[in-house]
């Protein structure tokens, strides 16, 4: 169904429920859907699983959501950063679960969810501690690990421009996880810098076609 446009981030995330798995775009601050995260903080849903590359920085955004005790589990590639003290504290206190996933597996597992792939054999992490408990298989003389899709109930992503149908373009490396997460969640909520007329985006340059976009709010 074509995208719906909302006036405020709060309305766009109003019905996210306790226990949801939420994919959160961004790599560092680039592409981070800051206003949607703030709206999720205000909205109150708890017992969340957050899938994102990092586990929050400083005291705002994801870190603030974590600090409120609203997150049961974090699935990410790199939770340890100089300013990830909120996550660090919760983790060391045993108050939050962590699944560390190599960044390429994280991206590919979300792509698999979006592409209808049941599982795939990945070359990454073979022979490492992150292979523990995973099925291995040798194919053409190389060993692979079986990896399953990562699916979201909701994706919160940031994009640059959106047209009236919901087609998205991004800016530079702020693209990062947005296009993949947009394919992998049942409900995709996007904050954009700008809404433009349908027909004004170059059809050759659309990165996320409107089919993947459910809700849009301009920030």
């Amino acid at each position, binding site marked *: *169904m*074509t995208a719906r446009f909302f006036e405020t981030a709060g309305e766009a995330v109003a019905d996210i429920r306790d226990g949801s798995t939420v994919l959160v775009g961004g790599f560092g601050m680039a592409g981070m859907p800051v206003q949607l995260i703030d709206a999720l903080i205000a909205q109150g849903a708890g017992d969340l699983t957050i899938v994102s590359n990092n586990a929050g920085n400083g005291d705002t955004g994801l870190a603030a959501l974590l600090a409120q005790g609203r997150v049961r589990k974090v699935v990410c590639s790199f939770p340890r950063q100089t300013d990830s003290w909120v996550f660090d504290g919760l983790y060391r206190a045993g108050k939050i679960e962590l699944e560390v996933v190599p960044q390429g597996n994280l991206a590919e597992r979300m*792509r698999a*969810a*979006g*592409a*209808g*792939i049941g599982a795939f054999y990945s070359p990454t992490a073979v022979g490492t501690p992150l292979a523990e408990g995973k099925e291995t298989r040798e194919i053409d003389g190389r060993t692979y690990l079986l990896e399953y899709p990562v699916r979201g109930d909701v994706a919160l992503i940031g994009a640059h421009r959106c*047209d*009236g*149908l919901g*087609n998205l373009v991004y800016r530079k490396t702020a693209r990062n996880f947005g296009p993949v997460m947009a*394919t992998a969640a049942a409900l995709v909520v996007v904050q954009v810098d700008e809404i433009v007329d*349908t*027909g004004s*985006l170059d*059809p*050759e340059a*659309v990165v996320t*076609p*409107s*089919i*993947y976009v459910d809700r849009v709010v301009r920030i």
Partner: protein
Amino acid sequence: MSLDKNAIAEQIAADIPPGSYVNLGIGQPTLVADHLAAGSGVVLHTENGMLNMGPAAAGDEVDPDLINAGKIPVTELPGSAYFHHADSFAMMRGGHLDVCVLGAFQVSAGGDLANWHTGEPDAIPAVGGAMDLAIGARSVYVMMTLFTKDGSAKLVPSCTYPLTGVGCVDRVYTDLATFLITGDGVVVRDTFGISFDELASRLDVPLLRP
């Protein structure tokens, strides 16, 4: 009176919710596009890498680089987007299309679809995107005549032709009736120039009233 192919297409078009993302396969199902209401906001997908495909191209509009899955020149509408084949089929197979409409040789009472191969030993097999569409779209509508030219039913207890997909069909739109494939069985939603009882007598499939 029984429906002609345009009238079947009209039935299907009326059932597609506004704003849906739809793939019309190749051949007769493409007629559905002509019957979508103006302003329906239905967005058409073509497997060869495009969303918001427009009508067939005519005259100067013809561009050899802009064709549909049936290799017919088409046009683009405002808000269209192009993508490569892996992305196009990921969209399809990942369950993102709301509806696809396909032709069929046979549909079984359980929703199995046979539309890619006659099963004749000397036929050259060719599947295209049919199997991906059949299992990928959220709702799969079949558009076909209910009987072959020699009078055999195409809605059958189980398909005798090679399958395209298992249990994937949701609705069957034909010249004589529209069928809903449900967990309880095959429901006759509408009949056209034939009574429920006559329909039931000509099909080897138990039918339910709506």
